[in-house]
């Protein structure tokens, strides 16, 4: 089922959501790594070279997720793997973005936006889509 994506790195400053997403995704057979900050997330990314990354948007700063995506996508490994932003900000704060328009793709270096709470089916669909 998860031949292409064995390991996923989750980065979120909400330790409860991190824990829950870890449990839900592990159930689907993924190997999950977690990080509670952008800084540690980037370090872990470079260490474990995961098959996919899921980043929370609002962490230390309101746009931490965008910055982290940019940094990951700048690495050689990051270029070739899917990096998703996971957030509820698009609904809650009127912070509107989808990373689908050409303009947004210019400045949001992610491969898709997932809404909280994470839906494993939605995530799998996005991963399959990325592969194609």
């Amino acid at each position: 089922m998860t031949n292409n994506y064995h390991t996923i790195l989750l980065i979120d400053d909400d330790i409860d959501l991190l824990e829950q997403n870890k449990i839900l995704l592990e159930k689907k057979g993924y190997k999950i790594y977690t990080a509670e900050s952008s800084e540690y997330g980037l370090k872990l990314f470079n260490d474990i070279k995961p098959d996919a990354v899921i980043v929370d948007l609002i962490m230390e700063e309101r746009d931490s997720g965008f910055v982290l995506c940019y940094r990951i996508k700048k690495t050689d490994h990051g270029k070739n793997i899917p990096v998703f932003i996971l957030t509820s900000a698009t609904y809650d704060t009127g912070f509107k973005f989808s990373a689908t328009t050409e303009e947004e793709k210019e400045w949001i270096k992610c491969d898709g936006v997932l809404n909280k709470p994470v839906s494993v089916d939605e995530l799998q669909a996005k991963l399959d889509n990325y592969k194609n």
Partner: protein
Amino acid sequence: MNTENPTILIIDDEKGLREGSKRLLMNEGYIVDTAENGATGILLVKDNEYDLVIIDLKMPDIDGLDVLTEIKRLRPNSVCFIATAYASYETAVESTRLGAYSYIPKPFTPEELIFNLEKGLKHRQLLLEAERLKREREESLLEVAHEKSRLKTIIESISSGVLLVNTGGEVVYYNHATLNKLAIDDLQIGQYSLDKLPDGLTDIVTRMLSEKKTVNKSFTTQYEINNGDMYIDATCSPVPQHDGTVAGVVIVLKNITGFKKIEKIKNQFVSMVAHELKTPLAAVLGYIRIMQDESIHISESQQDEFLTRSRSRLNSLLDLVNDLLDISRMEEKKVGREIEELDIKEIIRNTIKFLEFEIAKSKLLVNINFPDQLPVIKADRNEIIRVFTNIISNAIKYNKEKGFIDIDCSENGNYLTIKVSDSGIGMQPEEKEKLFQEFFRAKNKYTREITGTGLGLSIVKKIIESYHGKVEVESVFEKGSTFIVHLPINK
């Protein structure tokens, strides 16, 4: 004119006639002046307005017709008679041409004289009436002109734009404020203007102008200038003709930028609150979902942990709701304040006592350094307790184990200054800037385990400022922070 006692001047070089006429007319109720020559007569006319003047045609100094001309120039409404023994048709015509009312041939009988004078008095009344009407008309014209310019001044002074267009869409009237509310430099009376209005406004005006009958209803639209530099509220009302058809539309343009900005801040605050409320709920829901999912196996100790975590998230949610309620009460000034004299020493000692458990848990040392004599402050006890509870509990939460908290108090001019220093994690300069903002919480490797609503210090600031005090912070990252509160002393 005095109708009871008309005034009359008799100018004649013949003494007998002068005095004879004077006696006669005084008996008839006239007030009579006499002059023995033209020059004296003219001088009298300069000083008095007579109802009637009788001028002898032949006098030794000035010719009667010249006297007449001068008198008519000075007093156009005085009724003048020419009297002479040398009556001729030509002089009669000439004298009436020069303004004489009538011509009295000498010698005349008393009856003839009085008959003529009475006719003259009637004429005098007509002249005065005409004069009065003329003056009234001039005054009312002047008033209308005044009214117009007053109205113009009023409309020009209104800070809102006022623009009147006719059915052809041409400018009939506008005040100066219209220009910047439409972001244009110039507008001419008679100029077609609908293409100068923002689209939404043009649509409303066009629709109103096309109506057959004026409907007594205004329409409003809002638009922005230069991408939000200025927000304008435009109200359009039809202007009716006498028959009820549309004569034009008057547009009032109001600057609502300030209002829009407040609305925006309010909306941002509401969405931030929603996000802050949703996050802990989502965490708790997530745990419940996992615990109820039979396909996921979790151990008993995991389940205990999930419940403990859920409880802690719900507790902080409750704190958040309470803080929000406090803020909203403060903003609406509904707080039932009980202002009393407060001993700040006592308040701080009680706060320390209240937080004793947390202080002991972190093994902190608290030093209180107060002078013996301190002035009292006047404030609401609960609010001041709230201020120091928030500040001191931050000094505990963000401290290091076995660290210290120093609390100093001093009198500083008109202020009581309380300093709360800790040996905690401190702040980065950019964190310090945002410290008093709602929902701001420093996020770094030291703060991960610390809970809070992000509202505590914004509440502190609101309370202190409501007493015209001030709160400041000094901080060195990884060394500690000092919060300084200045409260005015009521002397």
